[in-house]
């Protein structure tokens, strides 16, 4: 049984100029204890997907279809109250920009206790929980402004793991931190994951971080998954031209090369190009890509790509 299974998830937003499909028919799964990454440019739908899995999409956005299975329970069938209880207890999120996710006028220990109490659990051993995410003793009594960015991020991890969920969604947990602190925080996340035996869905845009952290990677473009493969396959041989360009846009420490961005702009989600949504920016595009939308195909063991040429 998978820890998390997403099947045909679709999310759209109402917009005066038309419907915006932010997540379009996305399916993937996380095995127990697996680390799965999702990458894509801003606006590719990766954060929306995280919110949709947690059923936290607010109007004008709505989930149009698909199922989210946590273990053997279907989250899509839960009532609002049951879903509220499942969040944190079954599936927890370390939000993007945790710097601003904490309440500035409340001691951080109380914020962790609050989360537990809200789920009917008597808060205990908060100091031990703080120690587990690598925070020095005494942090419980601190206010967020007294902590560094890395420490605030750890507090958010402590909140996420306080009820021992089986799935942790981490949405760009280290994008505002420098590399040294980033590595410490990711190491903490890996440690608590091992402790809990949880699966991690890591959302981000840094291919280097993904290459070093996740087991499998999904690449999103314009609301769709364009490639899903074991990370070693992606590093060795990216199949989708977009994946290849994403990797190439990262500076190589081996050789000094001029920066190479991906040409063109991400498409407007309410007005997607015909055929393959990536064709206007794709170096390999041909006539077929303009007219025919590529369907996902398994091209090798565990490697699924949406490209006519893969």
């Amino acid at each position, binding site marked *: 049984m998978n820890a998390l299974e997403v099947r045909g998830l679709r999310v759209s937003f109402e917009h005066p100029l038309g419907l915006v499909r932010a997540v379009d028919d996305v399916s993937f799964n996380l095995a127990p204890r697996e680390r799965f990454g999702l990458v894509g440019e801003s606006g590719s739908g990766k954060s929306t997907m995280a919110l949709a899995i947690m059923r936290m999409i607010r109007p004008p956005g709505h989930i149009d279809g698909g199922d989210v299975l946590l273990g053997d329970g279907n989250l899509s069938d839960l009532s609002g109250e049951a879903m509220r209880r499942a969040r944190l207890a079954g599936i927890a999120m370390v939000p993007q920009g945790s710097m601003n996710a904490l309440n500035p006028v409340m001691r951080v220990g109380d914020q962790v206790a609050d989360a537990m109490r809200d789920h009917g659990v008597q808060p205990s051993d908060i100091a031990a929980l703080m120690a587990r995410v690598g925070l020095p003793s005494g942090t419980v009594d601190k206010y967020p402004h007294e902590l560094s960015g890395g420490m605030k991020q750890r507090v958010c991890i402590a909140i996420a793991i306080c009820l021992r969920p089986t799935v942790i969604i981490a949405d760009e947990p280290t994008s505002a931190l420098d*590399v*040294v602190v*980033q590595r410490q925080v990711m190491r903490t996340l890996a440690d608590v994951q091992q402790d809990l035996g949880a699966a991690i869905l890591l959302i981000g845009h840094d291919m280097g971080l993904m290459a070093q952290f996740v087991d499998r990677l999904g690449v999103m473009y314009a609301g769709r998954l364009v490639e899903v493969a074991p990370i070693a396959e992606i590093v060795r041989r990216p199949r989708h031209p977009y994946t290849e360009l994403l990797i190439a*846009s990262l*500076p190589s420490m081996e050789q000094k090369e*001029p*920066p190479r*961005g991906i040409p063109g702009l991400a498409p407007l989600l309410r007005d997607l190009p015909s055929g393959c949504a990536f064709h206007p920016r794709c170096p390999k595009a041909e006539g077929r890509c303009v007219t025919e939308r590529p369907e996902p195909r398994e091209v090798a063991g565990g490697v699924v790509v949406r490209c006519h040429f893969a």
Partner: protein
Amino acid sequence: MTAPLLQADRVGRTYGGGLLSGTPNVALDNFSMSNGTGTPSVTAVVGESGSGKTTLARLLLGLTTPTSGTVRYRGEDIGRLSGAARRSYRTDIQAIFQDPYGVFNPFYRVDHVLTTPVRKFRLAASRAEARALIEQALRTVGLRPEEILGRYPHQLSGGQRQRTMVARALLLKPKIIIADEPVSMVDASLRATILGSLRRLTDELGISILYITHDLATAWQVSDNIIVMYRASAVEAGRAEEVVKSPAHPYTRLLVGSIPQVSLTRDWLAAEPDAPRAEDRDAACRFAGRCSSAMDVCRVQVPPLSRIGPCHAAACHLYGQHAQLAAEDLNDVLA
């Protein structure tokens, strides 16, 4: 010898430390560098938050006054510039800031940030000429004017907004651009595009750039020189190649080793964790508490800057046998 265009001369900045506010917080300590002499180049100032890199940018831009030392423009203290000199300082030195969202007023069209400098600095005699100037600046940074002008900020992507800010800086034909974390809020592929356009400003228009960042990888990618800052001081400086390929200071080594690489070897998480020693927190060398090579001398004596190569210097006792380099001569090792 003519005075450098922009020079920080033993500049320091402390915050707090008044009668009631306890120990002063040193944001920048006795820092010297100059820019705008010789061949145009990109110099990166790399450091973690709190290393003093943004304080340096603000001091050079005249947004903060130094508590010691002087920032000079063409040899004159920027705090005492006459009207005409001040005007030319405000033209020659331009800034690009971190947040491509916050710099725009959402109620004005994007054109506003571009027409304001044209008007204030009387760059154009007519409306048509102004329009031509603006369009040219936008094209220089790889934007299509028809996609930018007449729009509101929310209609542009983060990358378009940041490049519009680069275009704004270009309108004034500056000699130096100080870019404070210009790409930290955009994603990897756009990052490369924006940095590519900055690099071209140096190569094609001869504008020197001071690129302030916490990201050593992009600094290496676009810069000729790198200065690594750690808690208010420069700990290493030199040609980008030297600093990244043969990092000398233990902090630079830690930085280089912490960059996650797209590679099949997954050793990033496995590396030895960095465990600060509390007893060395007040050591003379500010990095001693985190340093795996810390010696007795590091606890009692501030490491001077040593010249370890023609284009390479580090402030670390490991290089004590090399010739010392006075802090104000930091520029000697920059290309």
